[in-house]
């Protein structure tokens, strides 16, 4: 009797991918990239926390009493950053709506939501540019003190990631406008979404660590 080769149960499924895991390799690679990026931001957040409260000269992030009794007002603008945090969270919501629209074949709304996400990301960058400009005018630069060095490295690196994300989303938006983002391309949008949500969750950590916790 001839032996029948063993076929995995899922191999008969039209959705099964011919990879060792049965999962899409591009998505797997992107999750590995996100894992590596997590370590980059951990180093930056760790450095910020390690040097938190160790600046010898103002400006300081929060209200600080110096050893001579003088009170120095904190430089951080919590209401402004709260608004920009809300904008970034909303952009993540727009991103999942874009993915849902592309997955159901609605390219028009998918493109609208992709552009809305990019717009919200640009607004967040605008807030950050305003904040940085204000801080430089107040005397906080990379060279001012440990707070300046670690703050600009951390939030600047995050801002750079947002900028890359905005360019990524605009590129997808243009493809959508040209009718090249059908449901078969939904994984491209999903991967862009993973990047965008990662940028969002990094901010979910940065916002309390830098701004809210004194």
């Amino acid at each position, binding site marked *: 009797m001839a032996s029948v080769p063993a076929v995995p149960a899922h191999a008969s499924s039209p959705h099964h991918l011919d990879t060792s895991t049965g999962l899409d390799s591009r998505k797997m690679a992107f999750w590995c990239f996100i894992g590596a990026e997590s370590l980059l931001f951990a180093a930056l957040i760790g450095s910020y926390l*390690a040097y938190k409260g160790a600046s010898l000269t103002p400006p300081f992030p929060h209200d600080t009493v*110096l050893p001579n009794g003088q009170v120095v007002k904190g430089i951080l603008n*919590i209401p402004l950053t709260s608004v920009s945090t809300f904008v970034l969270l909303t952009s993540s919501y727009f991103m*999942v709506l874009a993915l849902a629209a592309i997955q159901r074949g609605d390219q028009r709304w998918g493109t609208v939501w992709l552009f809305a996400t990019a717009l919200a990301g640009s607004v967040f960058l605008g807030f950050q540019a305003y904040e940085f400009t204000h801080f430089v005018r107040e005397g906080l630069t990379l060279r001012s003190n440990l707070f300046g060095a670690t703050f600009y490295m951390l939030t600047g690196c995050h801002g750079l990631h947002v900028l890359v994300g905005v360019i990524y989303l605009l590129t997808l938006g243009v493809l959508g406008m040209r009718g090249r983002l059908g449901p078969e391309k939904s994984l491209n949008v999903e991967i862009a979404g993973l990047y965008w*949500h990662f940028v969002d969750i990094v901010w979910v*950590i940065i916002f*309390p660590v830098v701004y*809210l916790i004194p």
Partner: protein
Amino acid sequence: MTSEAAEILHDQHAHPGPRTYTKVALWLTVVTILEILAYVFEKQLAGFVAPVILFLSGLKFAGVAMWYMHLKFDSRIFSGIFLFPLSLAALVIFGLLLLYHALHPLPWVG
């Protein structure tokens, strides 16, 4: 069908829809408002402000990762690929804090 095969099929097709996304967005907004309120009422919360804010941030982090990044619905392999480096990242932060705040503390000013 093996549990692995079932998981793979589940991975491809079980993403939530706009209604669920809207609920998650509202929930994330509420948690963000609570975070800001914890900051505003810092004096009333006394020493609990940092743990409260960090707990709320953890909720937001989990919400975005599980629903928006689909880790709740996708293959567990993706969760593993994300959580392993994330654990290392937590160790890096903990190590730096230990080094600079416990073993070799810096002079504190502001």
